[in-house]
């Protein structure tokens, strides 16, 4: 039979174990083996960011990363960020600012926005709208509603910087 590799890693704060074919992408593993369907397949070549997930404190296009390389790593998906009952502040800001249109790009967009703001934890107040747009340059929204996305992230920056 074809080769399967057993890997162990942290997924949204819980230790997990799974067997995957060596050519499987991390995105396919998350969606098919763990039923975590927040991260989306859109372009499949790293151009759109819909599959963005945080792995060991860096955001990654999971459509490009092999699942076997998740072994020993710490992975956070949109499902680990907040819950339906208690949205994380970035998720809530996207709702409040009407940043969500069809929604397909949102899990990736929110993971990247959270990462961007966390990367500037020491100097959040310095993050400009231009910085936010640059930080989200790897995420495409085909409804093309970028203004409200930047509004939402800017609101989180303002809230967290003054906290």
């Amino acid at each position, binding site marked *: 039979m074809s*080769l399967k590799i057993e890997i162990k890693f942290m997924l949204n704060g819980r230790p997990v174990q799974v067997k995957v074919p060596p*050519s499987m992408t991390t995105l396919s593993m998350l969606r098919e083996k763990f039923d975590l369907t927040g991260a989306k397949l859109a372009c499949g*070549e790293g151009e759109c960011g819909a599959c963005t997930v945080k792995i060991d404190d860096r955001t990654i296009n999971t459509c*490009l*990363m092999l699942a076997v*390389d998740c072994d020993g790593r710490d992975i956070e998906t949109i499902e680990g960020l907040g819950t339906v009952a208690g949205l994380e502040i970035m998720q809530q800001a996207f709702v409040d600012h009407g940043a969500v249109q069809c929604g397909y790009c949102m899990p990736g967009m929110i993971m990247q926005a959270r990462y961007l703001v966390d990367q500037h934890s020491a100097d959040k107040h310095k993050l400009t709208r231009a910085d936010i747009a*640059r930080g989200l340059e*790897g995420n495409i929204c085909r409804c093309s509603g970028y203004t409200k996305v930047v509004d939402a992230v800017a609101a989180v920056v303002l809230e967290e910087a003054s906290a």
Partner: protein
Amino acid sequence: MLIENYKVPSTIVEAAQLLRHGAATIVAGGTDLTPQTEAGVREFRATLVNIQRIEEMRGISVADGRYRIGGLTTVTEILESELLAADVPVLVEAADHFASPQIRNASTLAGNLCNASPAGDMCIPLLLLDARVELARWADGSVATRSVALDAFFTAPGKTVMQDDELLTAIEFAQPADGFTATFIKSGPRPALEIATVSMGVAGVLREGVLHNVRVAIGAVAPTPLRATATEAGLEGRLLDEKVIARAAESVRQEVSPIDDARASAWYRKHLSGVYISRALVRLQGVQGVSGHVAEN
């Protein structure tokens, strides 16, 4: 081909031993490999070697006047390096033009070089720096390394002098000399995720408006990232005035051999090469505050 073996070496010694029989696919960040295998333009070989756990292939250091960047260093790590920002800003500038944050977080410097795209962003500043790559292989019971000048590394689109049993372990270059100045310009309809239509790097040691030890490197205008040596010679030791800059632009247009493709016509790439070298030279001149400044636009 179906992958029959999956290996995760944690040292260069282990990796070199695994690669000695060839027939292996090396994976690091996967940002070039995965789209190629998924699209069917490249096949996995029987053994997949994941080199991501080789810690000795990470990190940026400088010793005895030479920089050493581990092959697995990511583009983000280059972008965030305070050492490089202060000492070799052109490398950081190119990293800033590289793909997107998510891809920079995964892409490795060795991967960008080994993919050997004529448009590879990191190739250009490294050519300006006379960088060399270290290739390791297993020979006679131990790891043997050879050092190859980057401008002799690329042979064709997607092809390099690296053999199937070799691993690109590190990139090295001399700490830039006093007065070294360099600039990088990359085209594209938008700044992010752009495969360069033309990318241009110019470097040299500038003294009183005169450029010495000139380097001109251009991406996406030839089968490999190009060192424009004739143009370099034309600029060597010259005062950067309007005439010299115009001559350099003409020389570059002669030296490039671009193709027509989906992103641009050969004619446009040639034209852009001339525009960009002028712009780069004006920029370098501006760094020194030399008079006779031509407006940059």
